[in-house]
């Protein structure tokens, strides 16, 4: 199935309802593009400090126990077409759903995700928490382990996998050790063709990385059941309305140049304000 607009972006979907390719109008090209959800299992330790070897994943520390679990690769998918917006509405399970939006006349794709209440497996002696991520992949893009994040909220800072600029580093925790703060955007570029890039613009600060070639991942929501012994004294297990927290947010994804992505960052971060007011009972002509 192909969906989208002739004057903007078109997506093609697999029979499972997942994105297969993204077709851009300017310049005219089709790019293999994929998005999926996974979760890391949080490490469960005894917090036997100061060694720290047995520290649990918690509010202060992202510490996966080494396993990443893909979340069902065949969501229930509904398609909503129209002249203004096209939506691909996906439900993965009772705690994970997503709306992929294409706007008529726009080049970017919006992914509005809803994660939670995150369940945990009952009956285990030490139930682990889940740290849910989304991954965007352009399989033809080779970034050679280099990615960019705006961690200080001011400029895009160059990052390299398993590398620190001022000392020789050997990362014993290769996932968490390569995660960086993302204030508004994260970006990868092709090393041979820098005009080919993938940018994800967030609506809030998130953790993110590029652990594999052509891939960007971002942490969406975490529910952990053990304190990490860094001082907060409770597990990251927030409740609202009698249930574990639900996080709703959105990403703008663009395969345009970094300069264009920067304009999109401005539109997302300094978003237009919407106000509702009464028309005071007036007809349009009188109101005008």
């Amino acid at each position: 199935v192909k969906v989208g607009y002739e004057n903007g972006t078109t997506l093609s979907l697999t029979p499972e309802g997942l994105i297969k390719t993204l077709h851009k109008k300017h310049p005219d090209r089709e790019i293999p593009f994929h998005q999926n959800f996974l979760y890391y299992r949080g490490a469960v330790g005894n917090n036997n400090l100061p060694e720290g070897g047995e520290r649990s994943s918690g509010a202060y520390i992202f510490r996966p126990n080494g396993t990443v679990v893909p979340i069902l690769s065949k969501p229930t998918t509904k398609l909503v077409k129209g002249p203004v917006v096209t939506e691909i509405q996906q439900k993965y399970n009772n705690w994970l759903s997503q709306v992929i939006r294409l706007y008529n006349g726009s080049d970017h794709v919006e992914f509005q995700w809803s994660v939670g209440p995150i369940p945990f497996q009952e009956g285990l002696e030490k139930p682990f928490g889940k740290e849910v991520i989304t991954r965007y992949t352009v399989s033809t893009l080779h970034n050679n382990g280099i990615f960019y994040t705006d961690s200080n909220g001011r400029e895009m800072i160059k990052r390299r996998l398993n590398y620190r600029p001022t000392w020789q580093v050997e990362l014993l925790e290769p996932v968490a050790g390569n995660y960086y703060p993302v204030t508004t955007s994260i970006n990868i570029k092709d090393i041979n063709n820098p005009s080919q890039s993938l940018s994800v613009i967030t609506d809030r600060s998130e953790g993110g990385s590029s652990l594999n070639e052509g891939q960007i991942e971002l942490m969406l929501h975490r529910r952990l059941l053990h304190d990490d012994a860094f001082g907060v004294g409770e597990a990251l297990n927030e409740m609202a309305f009698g249930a574990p927290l639900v996080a709703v947010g959105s990403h703008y994804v663009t395969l345009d140049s970094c300069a264009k992505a920067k304009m999109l960052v401005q539109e997302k971060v300094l978003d237009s304000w919407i106000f509702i007011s009464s028309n005071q009972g007036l007809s349009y002509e009188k109101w005008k």
Partner: protein
Amino acid sequence: SFDISEAKEVMGVLQHHDSITGTEKAHVASDYARMLTNALKTVELAASFGLGKLMRKGLAQKWILTDSPKFTSCLLLNISSCPETESARSFVITIYNPLSRYVNKLIRFPVVNTQLSYIIRGPNGENIPVQMVPLSEIINIPGRVSDASVEIAFIAKNIPPLGYKSYYVESTKVKSPDFFISEAVELTEP
């Protein structure tokens, strides 16, 4: 003048690393949410005053608004909940652009009555293409209080820099040619 000092003070408090990263205790997070919500209400009043002033300025001497309309914002639009758009049959949406260049913006707001047609008129009286979109699973969130099962979507084009555009929204029983009802078609089954 209008007072946004409460918002400034709350933003000062929320600079704390616990607030930014979410490493505070749960009840502290709730307190931050309470403070921020209260502050946003004062900002809404300030924005209402500011927009009223901007409108009076824009209308120059030709027309004097004796009472500026009260502008409200829907803080729960992200979960498609907005009592103002759900209950009223006719209202005005004003979009303010804080950037120094023209922008287009997709506007979505929830409505309850799916039997009505919606007409949206732009600042020059032109009819804007409108789409009714069924809401997705995303609305099944604990704590969401709304009867809306659809949203109305339109694109506000060329909102001027540091300026605004107002759109007049009315619901009618007669279907407008610019009103499009879209349905959700199942692509894959559970």
